[in-house]
Every structure is written in C-alpha cells, then in structure tokens.
C-alpha cells in the first residue's frame, strides 16, 4: 500500500510556502531597498567586532613581576659525573629550591627541547637535569610543574626523542605541547622591538619560572645560553626575531624575568649548533651552572667556552644596558 505524506506535515509545509510566496510577491520600494541595503551593510561592518569579541581574545601582559631573592651565592658551578646530582648540589649550594618555590606554587620549567635529537647529541637539555629540577620543585612544595617548549622541529618527535618528556613525566611534571593560540601580547615600559609579540600565556601566568637551558654552539650568536633559550616561549614569526637578536633577547629576558637559571653543560655541542647531529662535535664537560641572574649565568658560561662576551650579541647588549650582574669579577661564585 502506498503511504501518502503525513497530513500534518503537509499543512505546515503549505503554510511556509504560502508565506514565502507572499513575501516574494511584495513589490520592492526604493525606501525598503535602502533600508535593507544599509542594515545589511551595518551588519557586515559590525559583525567583525562581534566575531573579534567572541573569538580573538588576546590579552596583554606587562611581564612577570621581578622578585628580589637573596641567595647564598650569586652563581654556583657544580661538577661531577652525574648530571642529576650536579643539579641537586648546585641548587642546594645556592640556598635550596625553597627560596624560589613556595608551597602551592605553579612552576614552569622551561628546558631547551627544540630539536629532534637524542640526549647524546646534546642539542637539547639533558633529561636528567630537567628531572632533577622537577623533583626539587615538588620537594619544595610546588602544586604543579609544567614543562613545555615551542620546538623548531615537529613537537611530538622532539618531545620523545629528547627524552625530556619521559624523564619529566616520571618525576610527575605536566609535559604538554604549547598551544599557539594561548598567548598574551607583551607590553614594555620602554620602546622595544618585542612590543606586542605573542608570548605563551602559561609562561607568564605562573608563580615561578625556572629556565633550564643547555650550553651549546649557535651559528648566529656564537652560543646558545639562557637568554636564547627564552625564545622558546615566543610564538609568531620567530625567524624574524633573528634580526637585531641582541636587543630583542634582553627585552624578552626582562619581560620573563626567570627566578632561577639552571644551565646544563653536561655534554656541550661545540660546532654546527644549535641543532648539531654529529657526536664528533660533542664535548663532555660534566658541569651544571645555577644562578638567580640570567646575565651572570650566561657570562660565566661564555667564559667556560672561552668566548669573548662581546662576541655574543645579547650579552654585549646586556653589558651596554647594565642589565643584571654584568661584572663577573665582582660576583660571588663558588664551585661545588
């Protein structure tokens, strides 16, 4: 038996068609045309504002607060075979992690994991150093430790191959991929080329920022040090940061103001940096540097590599501006 259409449905459809027909048959006056035209124009113009309000919410930030932390020494150099123990020793000698991390803090540990290289190739921070820092943070009472970077190679390959994801996760840290939409625009009290640069929100909104760079060679700047490592919290067109890199990196360091810098010099890439790849270019050094001052740490590391401070653009700029502790002869440095 043939089933006809639902009678209720058909009545509704007929009604709709009737109204549609009536509407279409109306004559269009000039006045009405103008009304429709201008209202749709207004809608088109204003919709952008609504859409922006809905979707493009990017807040801005004036940078992290600069804390005054009194450490036992300005810089500690730890030597030994085990990078984990080196890190622990260095931070203990500095006065312990308790100075930097208070109970219930959210801590960001920012290692250098930019390249799809394994730990032996020394293009990324040693995973044992990262694990030691994470462990110390939790011991000092941190509520949550975040570990992330914006890598130069593909995120998943880098996180896995560098070994940091596994080591930090084993220590209980939250290791995740940085979201390029989750950023804040940087604002500076002075004129800066980094003005309005999108910087990861997670790196700014945290209680303690611990920079864990690796000491290695870099083609443009000579050395990759702690200030260069901070590039990993920037998104946007990072390639264009390389023009006048010195001033930009000092501005960025001023903006992020990391509380603690733990520099890994366990295995050092001496040539073909920053990505490296050949084990012939790697020199074992078995050192870890810890300091509350990024400039001092960088200048000290520069000395380890026997490079002139002025040949590194961002250190030359820091010296010029007198940013941080730039005079290494006056600093309180110990070896453990």
């Amino acid at each position, binding site marked *: 038996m043939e089933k006809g259409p639902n009678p209720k449905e058909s009545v509704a459809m007929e009604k709709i068609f009737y109204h549609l027909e009536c509407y279409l048959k109306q004559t269009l006056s000039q006045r009405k045309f103008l009304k429709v035209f201008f209202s749709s124009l207004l809608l088109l113009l204003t919709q952008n504002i609504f859409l922006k309000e809905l979707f493009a919410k990017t807040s801005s930030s004036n940078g992290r607060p600069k804390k005054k932390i009194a450490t036992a020494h300005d810089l500690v150099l730890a030597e030994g075979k085990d990078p984990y123990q080196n890190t622990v020793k260095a931070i203990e000698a500095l006065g312990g992690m308790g100075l930097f991390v208070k109970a219930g803090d959210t801590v960001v540990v920012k290692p250098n994991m930019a390249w799809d290289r394994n730990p032996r190739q020394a293009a990324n921070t040693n995973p044992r150093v990262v694990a030691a820092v994470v462990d110390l943070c939790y011991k000092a009472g941190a509520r949550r430790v975040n570990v992330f970077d914006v890598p130069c190679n*593909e995120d998943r390959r880098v996180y896995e191959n560098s070994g940091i994801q596994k080591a930090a996760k084993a220590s209980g840290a939250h290791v995740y991929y940085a979201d390029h939409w989750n950023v804040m625009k940087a604002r500076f009290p002075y004129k800066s080329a980094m003005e309005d640069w999108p910087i990861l929100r997670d790196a700014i909104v945290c209680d303690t920022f611990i920079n864990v760079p690796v000491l290695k060679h870099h083609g*443009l700047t000579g050395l990759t040090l702690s200030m260069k490592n901070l590039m990993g919290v920037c998104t946007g067109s990072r390639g264009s940061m390389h023009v006048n890199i010195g001033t930009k990196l000092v501005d960025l360091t001023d903006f992020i103001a990391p509380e603690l810098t733990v520099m890994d010099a366990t295995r050092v890439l001496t040539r073909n940096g920053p990505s490296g*790849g050949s084990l012939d270019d790697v020199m074992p050094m078995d050192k870890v540097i810890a300091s509350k001052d990024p400039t001092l740490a960088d200048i000290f590391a520069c000395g380890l590599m026997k490079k002139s401070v002025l040949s590194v653009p961002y250190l030359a700029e820091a010296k010029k501006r007198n940013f941080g502790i730039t005079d290494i002869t006056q600093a309180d440095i110990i070896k453990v």
Partner: protein
Amino acid sequence: MKKLIFLRKIFQLFFLGLFIYVLWSTTYPLTGVLSPQLLFKLDPLIMFFTALSERVLLPGLLLAGGMLLLTLVFGRFFCGWICPMGTMIDITRKLRFRRRQRPLKDGQNQKARKPKFFILAFIFFLALGGVQAAWLLDPIVIIARVVSLSFIPAVTLTLNNLCIFLIQRFELYGGFYDFYRGLKDSFLGVNVHFFANSLITFLFFAIICLASVFLSRVWCRSVCPLGALYSLVARFSFLKRFISDCKNCGICRRECRMGAIKEDNQYVQGECILCMDCVYHCTKGQTYFAFKERGARSILQETERAGRSGMTRRDFLFWVLLSVPVAGLGRVFLKALKRDAGVLRPPGALPEERFVDTCVRCGNCMKVCITNGLQPIFMQEGIEGLWSPQLVPEIGYCEYNCTLCGNVCPTGALNALSLQEKKQAKIGVARIDRTLCLPWADQENCLVCEEHCPVAEKAIKVRVMTIDGKEILRPYVDEDLCVGCGICQNKCPVRPQRAIRVYPLGS
C-alpha cells in the same frame, strides 16, 4: 535467513568504522593495530593493474588474489558487506525523497551494467600499454582520500576550535584545559592538518554518493571498475540464490538495489552483492542463498546461462578494437598535457615517470606526514599528476629523522627507506635568492636557515664579511650536502616569497 540483513548492516558499519579508524591512526608514531597499506593490498584492481602497468611483482598481489578467491566462493560479498564506499552510498540512499523507485526493465538494467566493464577494459588496456589508470575510479582510493584529506581534517578542526572557543570564552584554564591537552595528545593530533583541494576531493565523492538517490547504487551498477572485476569472478561463484514456490509478487525485483533480479525473478549472478534485500522482503520466505539447492528440482543451469549477459562477445571484440589505439594515444596525450615544471616528490619516490604510474593517490603519505608538508596537487602536473603528493615547504618541511611516508605506501611508489637511507635521500636542492635574503640584500644578520639545517655538517655554510664595519654572516648552500628537506624555506622569515627555496632536482 531473514536476520542476515541485520548482520549485513552490522558488518557494513563495522568495516566502515574500521576503515576510518585505520586511516585515523595513520599518523605518528604509527602504532595502529592494522597497517593502512592493508586496505589497498586487499584491493585487486589496484594491485593487479599497478603490477601489470609497471611490470613488477607487488607484495599485495597475494592478498588481492585471496580476495578474488573468496569472491569465487561467495560472490560479490565485498561490495555488499565490506566496501566502505558501498556503505556510504547505502547511507546516502536513505535521503531519497520518493520512498519507492520503479524497478528498471530488463533491457535498461542490462544497458546500465555495461559501462563498468568498458571502464575495466579501458584500464586493462592502458595498463598493458604501461599507464596505470586504476586509481582514478577505484572506490577504495576515492573514499580513503576523502576520509584522510577531507573528513578527518574537518572533524579535528571543528572539535579543536570548539575546545579553543570554550577555553578562551569561559576562561577554562584548569581541568578542562588539561582534558583538551589530553585530547590533542591522543585523538585530535597535535596540529590540525589541512589539505589543498580538499573540497574538490570531497565533491568527487559526494557526487558519487548523491547519484544513488536517483538510482540506487548506480555507481556500483554502472561505473565501479572494482565491482566489474569482482563481477567477472562472481558470475562463477559457488554461493547461489535459489527461489522455490515463487508467487511472482515482484517485490524482490523492486527491492533489489543492484537491479540484478530480472522480470522472471531469476537473477544475474555477477551483479548480486548478497545484500539480502530479496531474502528479507520475500513474502513467503522462499528466497535463500546456498551452495546447493534444497529439494529436488534445480534451476541452476538456467540461472547460470542467464547470468552471463553483462557483456556480450560482440561488445568485447568491439571494445578490444577500440581500446588498443585509444590506450596508445592516451599515453601520448597524457604526456603531452604535462607541464615540465616539476614538483617536489616525497623522499624515496621513484623517478617521476614511474612514480605517477605507480602512485594510486590513496592519500596515506599525505595523511601520515607529520608536518602536513605533503599536499595533493591538482593539475600542475597534468592529468597524470592529479592528487599525487607534493612537498610544499611553505606549509611543512620534511622531517629529517622521519620515515613515515615510505612505510605507508601500498604500491611502493615511495620506497620504504631506512633512517640512514632517508637521511641521504635527496628531494630537491635549496637555492638562496640573494635579492631577497636579508644578509645579502639588506646587510642584516639573520641565519635562520643555517640554524635549522638538519644535516650534521650543515648544508648551509656561512661566509663572514665585513661591510661598513659591521660583521655580516652570509649563508650559501652546499648543493652536495643539501637534501632538500625544505626546513630552511619553511622557517625563512622573508615574506611573501621566501629568500631560500627548494627546487626539484635537475631544474
């Protein structure tokens, strides 16, 4: 027996889900349960004609031959029970506005069946001439490409943006954000991938599906060359349809989605896809499928004779005579259409001439590419290059330590390289445009390309020059070391055109 129709529907949905799952898991680190190569190794059309046109033995031939053997036993079970394209067509058919279509007459049905055999013959003769054309109309390839390049990106983009909207709008930076990160890590993928020409890919598929609204399974009846291949085998299959005590009500003829049942209620064996519609709708429950007829009287002989009416001997001869010159001319024609610009092929690709004939455009390599750099091309390489993969360094570069694309290629158009081989495989060669490059043109230090160069000895070397008292580091390319991975082009800060670009070898 009537329950079989539900079993068939469950099978169809299961295999469609499995198909999507396999393609969804075709991503780094490639830990899916089933290899995405398998989907295409089970496809005799692709395997046989690629092997024939390239004169190579492919490892998938055995599996494909197995499918034909199963077809010899059960008939075209693949079309009705497994084929994901068939499932999508069946789902779309539910959209039809008039619930019941009048069945076609015998003569009309016979005419409707023919084109697919012609297409198959055309593919066969082209393959004899050395051109592989099976990819253009193979249903598995079409749906795999749609799933990989259109469906999965659309779903992940929607979910991803929904989550981002919720997080930003309602400031859910706590637990929900962690949930989103977990989702990204497992299900969505770290980056949402986009593919060029995905709308055209989708439209090609959508037209095929929507055509079934007007005539059920018109693709399977008339066009599908894979169906034609199965049909040639299935007409000798052992599993057969029997009717007894027929009341001649004609319901089975009206319900048959393939138009395989004739006016005398017998069926064309090669056309039957075992969808079980006739069994389900048979008023008396007298239709059944079996290897041997129940009861005494056999109508087997009659059925078989009638079943061979798909393509007559005259048709076949006509087509042979027509195909030979067409196949010969086709090759010349296709080559003539091709522009010689050249594109960057993935690492381990066969030489261009053989690559376009071996590649079946399944989209696996593009789906798996970790940086999204492999993109389907449209007409840059002529018709022959349609939907074949190309590396677009502006979108994504070739990861130095990644060997995924060679490992998912079902036909060996991309060789499965070991990591050592991959690192030496040249895709192209980078060249610096000194009128754009910042250190060369504007005396500004940059060196982003050198920084990213993955070759351990650095294929981009630096020349130190002092200009107006300022030390400028100027990059240049060592063309012997360069593998053409394109990361330099990808990261180059110069816009709109990059100052360092990768060109195909020999250009």
